């Protein structure tokens, strides 16, 4: 879409210029439409008497004092205008980022303005309008970054500055009146514990999958008989729904813990982290093993031939030539596993494994949307950050040789 928008209308664009017409950006049109709907029809924030009842929506000017709303809306409209016109990617990035920061900051002013004084139970949260504005300007920023064709280092730097910005907003206390942050305040201890557990489960199962899956992939490369058996089995494992998989783990692990008390003492039980780790490990095996196999298969035949002809042993070929050359493909598999695991760990909270899923399921149980968000938003952020970091790493490795 971005490419088409940038190149296709060029022939017509000359004529349009000749007529002195304003040239519009296609994606910008969509962004502007979303912004318009968000500003006019959707509530910017919601006010609820307490954390579980549904509340009423507030438009941007109702939710904010005029002194905040006016500059906020100005930023938003400026961002939309930059999106709508054919502007350079740098300006689009700046405009999109400024509008996004504006939206993120002004939502923090809502609670003080609308919450009835002396009512600690009242909850102010972002409304549909806030989310739509956030989505629209994220789209603008992402599109501008894609058009700038930033290298891996620059993308990581962009991610770091975005993280620093969000960190600064959190640190300033700007959002502390918002309902999600109130949920955070009551769950602060377990939030970081569960966050650590979430990362442990996702990356622990990944590490185990690499330790087993990588040798498996190498072995599959050497023996078609082995790959003919292994890959279909791993494929079938992938199709088992995660909840069913966690359920399937419970009975055998529970029995084992009873049978072998030592295992029980090590923390192996039918519920908790052990079945979650094993299930995630099984899910991770296919992407790791299959990508190792494909990565090795894609190495040019004459490179392997040359390595043999130079007198490298099988082990030297594998470590010095084959694995380094297959690394970008292998890392692509690892990236799939990381993002997939970060999502799947959420479900593992159902069998008591912990992680951000705890808040999601607690929130569902209490119909407390804010608590669901407290679990869901960090999960999404975690997956997003991991994806960007891995993409940058893969590109960095591939860049050096092509």
């Amino acid at each position: 879409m971005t490419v088409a928008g940038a190149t296709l209308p060029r022939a017509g664009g000359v004529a349009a210029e000749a007529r002195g017409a304003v040239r519009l950006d296609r994606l910008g049109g969509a962004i502007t439409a979303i912004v318009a709907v968000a500003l006019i029809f959707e509530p910017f924030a919601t006010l609820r008497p307490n954390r579980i009842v549904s509340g009423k929506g507030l438009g941007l000017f109702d939710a904010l004092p005029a002194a905040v709303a006016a500059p906020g809306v100005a930023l938003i409209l400026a961002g939309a205008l930059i999106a709508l016109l054919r502007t350079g990617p740098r300006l689009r990035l700046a405009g999109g980022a400024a509008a996004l920061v504006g939206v993120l900051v002004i939502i923090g002013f809502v609670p003080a303005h609308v919450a009835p004084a002396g009512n600690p139970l009242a909850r102010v949260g972002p409304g549909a309008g806030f989310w739509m504005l956030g989505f629209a300007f994220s789209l603008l920023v992402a599109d501008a970054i894609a058009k700038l064709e930033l290298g891996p280092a620059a993308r990581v730097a962009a991610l770091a500055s975005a993280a620093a910005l969000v960190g600064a907003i959190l640190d300033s206390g700007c959002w502390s009146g918002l309902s999600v942050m109130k949920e955070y305040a009551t769950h602060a201890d377990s939030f970081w514990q569960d966050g650590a557990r979430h990362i442990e489960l996702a990356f622990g199962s990944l590490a185990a999958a690499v330790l087993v899956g990588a040798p498996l992939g190498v072995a599959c490369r050497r023996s078609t008989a082995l790959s003919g058996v292994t890959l279909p089995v791993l494929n079938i494992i992938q199709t088992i729904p995660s909840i069913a998989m966690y359920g399937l783990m419970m009975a055998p692990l529970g029995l084992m813990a009873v049978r072998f008390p030592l295992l029980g003492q090590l923390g192996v039980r039918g519920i908790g982290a052990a079945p979650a780790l094993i299930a995630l490990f099984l899910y991770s095996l296919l992407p790791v093993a299959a990508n190792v196999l494909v990565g090795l298969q894609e190495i040019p035949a004459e490179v392997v031939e040359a390595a043999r002809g130079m007198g490298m042993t099988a082990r030297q070929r594998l470590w010095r030539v084959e694995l380094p050359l297959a690394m970008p493909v292998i890392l692509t598999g690892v990236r799939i596993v990381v993002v997939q695991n970060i999502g799947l760990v959420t479900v593992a909270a159902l069998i008591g494994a912990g992680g951000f899923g705890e808040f999601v399921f607690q929130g569902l149980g209490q119909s407390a949307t804010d608590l669901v968000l407290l679990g869901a938003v960090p999960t999404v952020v975690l997956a997003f950050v991991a994806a960007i970091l891995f993409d940058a790493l893969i590109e960095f490795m591939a860049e050096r040789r092509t």
Partner: protein
Amino acid sequence: MIEIEDVSRYFGPNAAVESLSLTVERGSMVTLVGTSGSGKSTLLRMINRLIEPTSGAIRIEGRDTSTIPGEDLRRGIGYAIQGHGLFPHWTVKRNIATVPNLLKWDAARIDRRVEELLILFGLEPDLHAQKFPHELSGGQQQRVGVARALAAEPSVLLMDEPFGALDPIIRAKAREDLRALQRRLGVTVVLVTHDMEEAIALGDRMAVMDRGRLLQYAAPAEILTRPAPGFVERLVGDSERPFRLLSLTKVGALAEPGEAMGPAISEDASLRDALSELIARGGDSLTVVNGEGAPRGRVALSAILDRAQLAS
């Protein structure tokens, strides 16, 4: 010296190479020529045991290769292949140092050797040592491939269609360079090619193979003048044959005393060059000069044509 004695290689019931014997003299260059599927690459790869012979023996400098572990054997033999096979994730320097590294040479010795080879192959060390293969031209990549094969100073160099990926103009230059280099280093070279021209131009002797068998093994001039009946005859017996024959002989060999009216030609040029010069200029003789430009006599059109007759 490479002695190949009654070597066969079967893939299942099919013979890729069948009871073949061949001796390559030390310091000479032998070309293996044949169509694809003739077994020439299989034969080459049996010399460094990338493929194990089913039966027979191969000796290098008198040592039976089957008594040496495969990896050790290959580290002692240079190996260059079509499409160079350079390791794309390593710099030029590290590529060239592949075998010295496997042999655990010390760093200073490797540095010296890499620099020496880069200069020998016309690559400026400061400019090229730290480049990656994809940053080089096709001709440069090919030269680095040969430099890598020669890095550990092997006495034997095996080459499988080393110029196959080059365009025709660079290929001719690469052939000349290889010939000069081989003479200079005195390395024994076995080179596989499907290109008659290349086999004739490079080989001290050429081995013509078909369906796993050695049909004729002789100097190029002999193969052109007295081809074995059947396949070899058909292979060399096309309209190019007189020209190929002429390309093997230098002008100096046919120089006779006397003055010529025609333009000068170096005594080191081939008769083929002399003939095309005569066709281009008209006339019936050329003045032969030596390297310093001093006259050495004349070469007559009739003598050149007589020589070409030998082929038909």
